[in-house]
């Protein structure tokens, strides 16, 4: 049996902290955008925090992930520093990508995050390649490809999974099914009761879990990662969740109802986890309050320091294209 996170003080506190970091980070981003202090576009994962939190808990630091356009959560959960993330979004030289990438390209290779990706399903075959590399180098690393439900319409998704299945690579395809690919309902799009039914067609195991439950995501990922590390090949996991915000700032939410949004707001993974941890005795109310307050402080200081950092400079643009 897997570790009961909610009953384990250290893990429960860490998980809760991760979820709060994602939530607070994105609220800050939303605020900065709203006030015209941030540029570009934004894809927020508020409401989906349990997925990266539970999944990354099952990974080692040197395991790989590939991420998506909605990637702040993955980045934070894999261990990135919020200050450097915020600096990136604020177009600072100290950002993870020196201000060249922004939200859609945040990566932290030191913690195994090979990058967010502006291309839907773009990271899927890249994860297959990282897993191939791990296998060829004999390192026992595993790669997790986070992707959305919408990504499963892409040929890149298919080809990435086909190769991984043929070579039995140590990779987990983790679908964050937030019910929509932009405005397209995944129920309509894919003609399936659950997206994990797709896995059979590739001869790999598939499972569907409650994506708002850290433990459920952790358990499924842990099983998949253990199998992968032991040479048992890839797994597909569907984690059902919901994004509270629109797809991006241009979204008028015409394709879904207020009721549906409210229903899912009622399933907020954070209080759900807090209640579980309290009940299981992993955390006290004081612990819970402390985690929340610490994250708030940490985030505030991250934003301040990021803001104070020097802007990205255009001096070496041409020489930054090729590695030497």
């Amino acid at each position: 049996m897997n570790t009961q996170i909610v009953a384990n003080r250290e893990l429960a506190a860490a998980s809760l902290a991760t979820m709060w970091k994602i939530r607070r980070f994105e609220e800050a981003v939303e605020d900065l955008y709203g006030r015209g202090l941030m540029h570009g576009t934004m894809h927020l994962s508020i409401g989906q925090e349990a997925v990266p939190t539970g999944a990354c808990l099952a990974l080692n630091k040197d395991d790989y992930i590939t991420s998506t356009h909605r990637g702040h959560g993955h980045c934070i959960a894999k261990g990135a520093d919020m200050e450097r993330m915020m600096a990136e979004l604020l177009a600072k030289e100290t950002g993870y990508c020196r201000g060249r990438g922004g939200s859609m390209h945040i990566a932290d290779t030191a913690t195994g995050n090979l990058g967010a990706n502006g291309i839907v399903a773009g990271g899927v075959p890249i994860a297959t390649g990282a897993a191939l590399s791990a296998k060829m180098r004999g390192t026992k690393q595993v790669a997790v490809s986070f992707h959305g439900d919408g990504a499963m319409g892409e040929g890149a998704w298919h080809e990435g999974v086909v190769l991984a299945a043929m070579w039995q690579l140590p990779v987990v395809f983790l679908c964050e099914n937030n019910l929509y690919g932009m405005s397209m309902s995944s129920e309509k799009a894919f003609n399936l009761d659950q997206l994990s039914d797709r896995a059979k067609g590739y001869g790999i195991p598939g499972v569907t879990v409650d994506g708002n439950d850290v433990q459920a995501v952790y358990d499924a990922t842990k099983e998949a990662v253990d199998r992968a590390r032991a040479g048992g090949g890839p797994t597909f996991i569907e984690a059902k969740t919901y994004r509270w915000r629109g797809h991006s700032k241009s979204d008028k939410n015409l394709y879904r109802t207020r009721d549906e949004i409210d229903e899912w707001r009622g399933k907020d993974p954070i209080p759900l986890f807090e209640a579980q941890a309290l009940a299981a005795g992993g955390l006290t109310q004081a612990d819970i309050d402390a985690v929340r307050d610490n994250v708030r402080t940490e985030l505030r200081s991250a934003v301040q320091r990021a803001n104070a950092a020097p802007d990205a400079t255009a001096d070496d643009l041409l020489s930054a294209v090729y590695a030497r």
Partner: protein
Amino acid sequence: MTIETTAAQTAAPATGETVTMTYSEAVRDAMRIAMAKDPAVFIMGEDVGTYGGAFGVTGELINEIGPDRVRDTTISELGIMGAGVGAAMTGMRPIVEIQFSDFTAQAMDQIANQAAKIHFMLGGAVNVPMVIRAPGGSGTGAAAQHSQSLEAWFVHIPGLKVVMPATADDAKGLLLSAIDDPNPVMVIEHKLLYKTSGEVRTGDIRTPLGVAAVPREGKDLTIIATGVEVSRALEAAEILAADGIEATVVDPRTLKPLDSDTILRTVKATGRVLLVQEAVRTLGFMSEVSAIISESDAFGYLRAPIKRLAGLDIPIPYAPKLERASVPQVEDIVAAATDLVRKW
């Protein structure tokens, strides 16, 4: 069985009236008109329905026309493009919307190896009358995978036509011509232009493919620009005029087939030429324009080397200042033009 293709529509007589609308509305107006006239015309793409399109271009068309002909797809650019090809070969006239022109990379096989080649490769047995609409260009902070200007890829493919409207009126008129055309036509719109307004002719009007516009004439140099750089060139021309430099500005509008006659005529008239594109410099569209000029008889009229202003040879960076520095701005055009005229 015969595979029917709807006969090209002829334009209703122009009424000569115009109305102010945005570039985005003009595109929508063209699609509305084409769909009202011809049941074979339909739109297909990601989020073109209820969402109204990633840039709001299809807007509420789904409510007017219905979900059958304003058709939401899965996120499957290659499949959508192929479905467009198959539909176009069998009597429909699809307009395929790709959310960002960067994602044409996903659909490149169906664009380059299928749509563009089928008519020739099948000995003329069938046509592929489809339109691909995709916004290109930088300036929105969307970084390297959402900001490219990839028209050169398409201009290099025999069998495609390529259009880049720079004004609201051309956005409408060129799109209606593209829909009429019995060939696949790539229409590259520009994100920054969607919200710009202009006078647009009302009704079922056309801007012919293959005819350049010359929105300004001047004796000192010829500025040839495409897409968003057309308005920058015109703005620059105003500033230059105040400084006593009179520029001709040429907007090819259709990149393929190219109106080289107009280009060569205006180049001969001024003897100096400044080429301006947003795309990266190396092998961008203006490389071809340069080559055409310097192998033509206009070569003998040149008083100065041909000058290119282009995007830096880099992926578009996210940071606003860096992004701006990556592509030609009004002041760059003014400086380059001044240099060209003063030095030569």
